[in-house]
């Protein structure tokens, strides 16, 4: 009888913790592991070494309004071609900005979209090849690295002055 009560109590507590945790991760912030080298050296600087197990960076993803995204923020978004995957890239242009590609094309970012680019521009699939990303697909802004311990710290979003491979002209 007491075992049953104990189990029921435990289940109740787990359920409470679960729903509160899910609500927090949906509305405020969540954790995520970053795989792949498309954002190195900002995230995963050594992921091309072959001992690839404990080297993934875990990052804190903060949810925010669509107006609060700025150029040079590192963002998480759902991949437009595979909706179950999420990608991490840096915003290079917001609506109204025009972007000079290395192929001498100029792209003006239309309403409700953004131009994203990986920090490791040599091996990164981003807006240069697959097109602009609708802002509705953005899931949050990467603000901190929380694992591994020697790399705990803020992701330098506004300090990095040059974006790789493209030139951006702001709208104003």
């Amino acid at each position, binding site marked *: 009888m007491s075992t049953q009560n104990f189990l029921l109590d435990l289940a109740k507590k787990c359920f409470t913790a679960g729903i509160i945790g899910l*609500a927090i991760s*949906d509305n405020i912030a969540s954790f995520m592991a970053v795989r792949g080298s498309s954002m190195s050296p900002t995230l995963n600087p050594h992921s091309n070494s072959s001992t690839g197990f404990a080297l993934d960076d875990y990052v804190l993803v903060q949810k925010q309004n669509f107006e609060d995204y700025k150029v040079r923020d590192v963002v998480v978004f759902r991949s*437009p*071609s595979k909706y179950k995957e999420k990608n991490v890239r840096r915003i290079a242009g917001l609506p109204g900005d025009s972007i000079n590609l290395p192929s001498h094309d100029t792209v003006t970012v239309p309403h409700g979209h953004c131009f994203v680019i990986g920090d490791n521009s040599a091996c990164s699939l981003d807006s240069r090849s697959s097109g602009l990303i609708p802002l509705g697909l953005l899931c949050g802004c990467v603000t901190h690295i929380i694992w591994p311990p020697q790399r705990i710290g803020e992701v330098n979003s506004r300090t990095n002055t040059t974006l790789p491979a493209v030139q951006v002209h702001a709208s104003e």
Partner: protein
Amino acid sequence: MNGGDIETMRAPKLMLQYALRWKSTAKEVISHSIVFAQFFSLMHLTNAYICSPTLVYGPSMLPTLNFTGDVILVEKLSPLLGKVGPGDVVLVRSPENPRKTITKRIVGVEGDTITFLVDPGSSDRSDSMLVPKGHVWIQGDNIYASNDSRQLGPIPYGLILGKAFCRVWPPEDFGPLRQ
């Protein structure tokens, strides 16, 4: 002198009493706030993952949904499981303005070739297009007044927020939506 002694004797007792009182108050506060948090989390969960009511208006879905505004129930589970297909009425976050949502019907999924009238009001020129991977083709039921994939292009699947399945307002039209 004598009174001071009594005071020093009483002080620890009083503090203990205070501590006990505060402990019970704190316990009560914590249990109440947990109940609150539970309530709001449950509400968020129902809204985000099971179903939520949505007000839709506008001419683009005319024979199916009224112009003046209907309240429909939108079920959030099937887009997460990948179970929306052609014929479903879906709620989509607008690619032009992420603050807005639009309600349209899915016409084709990835790999389909869609043939559509470019400008049905003035000419009968038609065009066809292959829907790329991970995208859907959405169109309003009223093709003469609808801003949909014919202008916006294929929509990424990730922008689908939910599948409309039931109308709750106005009451005389209550019931499941026509497919």
